[in-house]
């Protein structure tokens, strides 16, 4: 076992792990934003906006994350005429800058994977946020209105913090699930951790050992994430009386 952990293998795995962590951080933030945004739209007084947001949520929740990732990475470029694809997706200044910044040869696939994960996780989060806002006591909202809060202030000071606090445990679960879903990016030529584990297996022929390493690493990641998010949860609820399900 020691022989297969050559310095090259270790650095390959570490590079993959860095990319996985980067993907997790980026998509956690973007999906949270999308989730709040769409979740709020779901609460709109306007019926059209409400149902449009509802459609968004249903569509991107019910299609598997893998399909969404493959679609944006491989299928989407084929919608454009063949001669524009090179410029749009692979050979422009944005892509070149990304290559130098991240070391990825083809950043488009990683971007597509992030996009797919954002939409999928974001759709789930939108529903969680909406449910969270739904548990807020009416009196709180009515009091705010009585005190003269406009819609924006209401959102920013009451709905947003209240909804996020109420839904936070479920948000934590969903964010950890999102981290695990970054492994799906391996299907679209993104050299994140799961892909580098597979590459190490084919080079060294030691499948069980590397799979065990992978399991341990992902367990570590989810435990650390859960711990961090739990700290955030505690800070969010400091000094408040709150009945929370275990």
């Amino acid at each position, binding site marked *: 076992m020691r022989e297969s952990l050559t310095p090259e293998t270790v650095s390959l795995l570490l590079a993959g792990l860095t990319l996985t962590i980067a993907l997790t951080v980026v998509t956690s933030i973007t999906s949270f934003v999308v989730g709040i945004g769409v979740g709020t739209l779901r609460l709109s007084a306007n019926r059209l906006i409400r149902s449009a947001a509802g459609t968004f949520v249903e569509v991107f929740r019910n299609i598997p994350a*893998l*399909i969404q990732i493959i*679609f944006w990475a491989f299928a989407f470029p*084929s919608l454009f005429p063949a001669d524009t694809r090179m410029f749009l997706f692979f050979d422009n200044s944005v892509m070149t800058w990304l290559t130098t910044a991240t070391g990825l040869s083809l950043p488009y696939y990683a971007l597509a994977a992030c996009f797919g994960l954002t939409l999928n996780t974001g759709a789930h989060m939108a529903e969680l946020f909406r449910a969270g806002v739904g548990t807020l006591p009416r009196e709180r909202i009515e009091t705010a209105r009585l005190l003269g809060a406009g819609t924006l202030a209401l959102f920013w000071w009451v709905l947003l913090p209240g909804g996020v606090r109420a839904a936070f445990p479920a948000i934590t679960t969903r964010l950890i699930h999102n981290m695990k879903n970054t*492994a799906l990016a391996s299907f679209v030529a993104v050299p994140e951790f*799961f892909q580098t584990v597979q590459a190490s297996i084919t080079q060294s022929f030691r499948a069980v050992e590397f799979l065990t390493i992978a399991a341990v690493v992902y367990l570590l990641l989810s435990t650390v994430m859960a711990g961090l998010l739990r700290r955030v949860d505690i800070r969010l609820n400091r000094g408040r009386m709150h*009945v929370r399900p275990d």
Partner: protein
Amino acid sequence: MSDQIDFLLDSLPHLLFGFPGQRPGGLVMSVLLAVAGLGVGLAVAVVVAAAQDARSRSLRRLADSYVHLFRGIPLILLVLIIHQLVASGPILGLNNTPLRSAVIALVLYSSAYQADIIRTGLRSVPVGMVEWARVIGGSRWQVYRLVKLPYSLRVMQPALSGQGITLFKDTSVVVIIGVAELTTTARIVLGSDVGNTPFWVATYLTVGLLYFVVAFAVSRLALRGERRYQAGNLVRSLAIPTAKTGSRL
């Protein structure tokens, strides 16, 4: 445009049912995998949930580690691990290796999530009911089986059906070991002829649509079932203190 439609019409039977040599396959296989994973997973989860509330500390630790493990790693990794580990020869009457590995992995994965759902459900059983059962002489196991489980199963029904739908979508990852379900069949359909590259978008949109239709339909049905149950929800109407809320109403 018309050749796109022709292609889709030709591939649709394969996407739905699988290729002739691989039936059942395609969407049908995805559904079967989800049902198997959910059903067998439920049985395993009941045992695990019971162990999580056991008197023996090491049993509790073991059950908690089980749940922690199978929730903490991606399903796609679990599928690969099981595929490498499961010894050759038929197990549970299943001879087809990738299929067998897929089912085992899905059962393990789903049982961990379901164990948590069951735990939450068990906690919502009214304390009074449990006390009454113990007072009239029921053992811990009898109380679990005859009082807590039936009551909480009805409470947990929405969460369990949600888990089933999620599992159905997660079956897409078994493409990594070549089980002939919907995602794999789509890949084969596109890969059978190099000239098929213009059909990528149409095919994946169709695949997405198929997953969507099934998942959405099932979730709507479950919602309707849930509404009917809530009409007769004793706990809400009588505000009986439960293990969760203590004596707070």
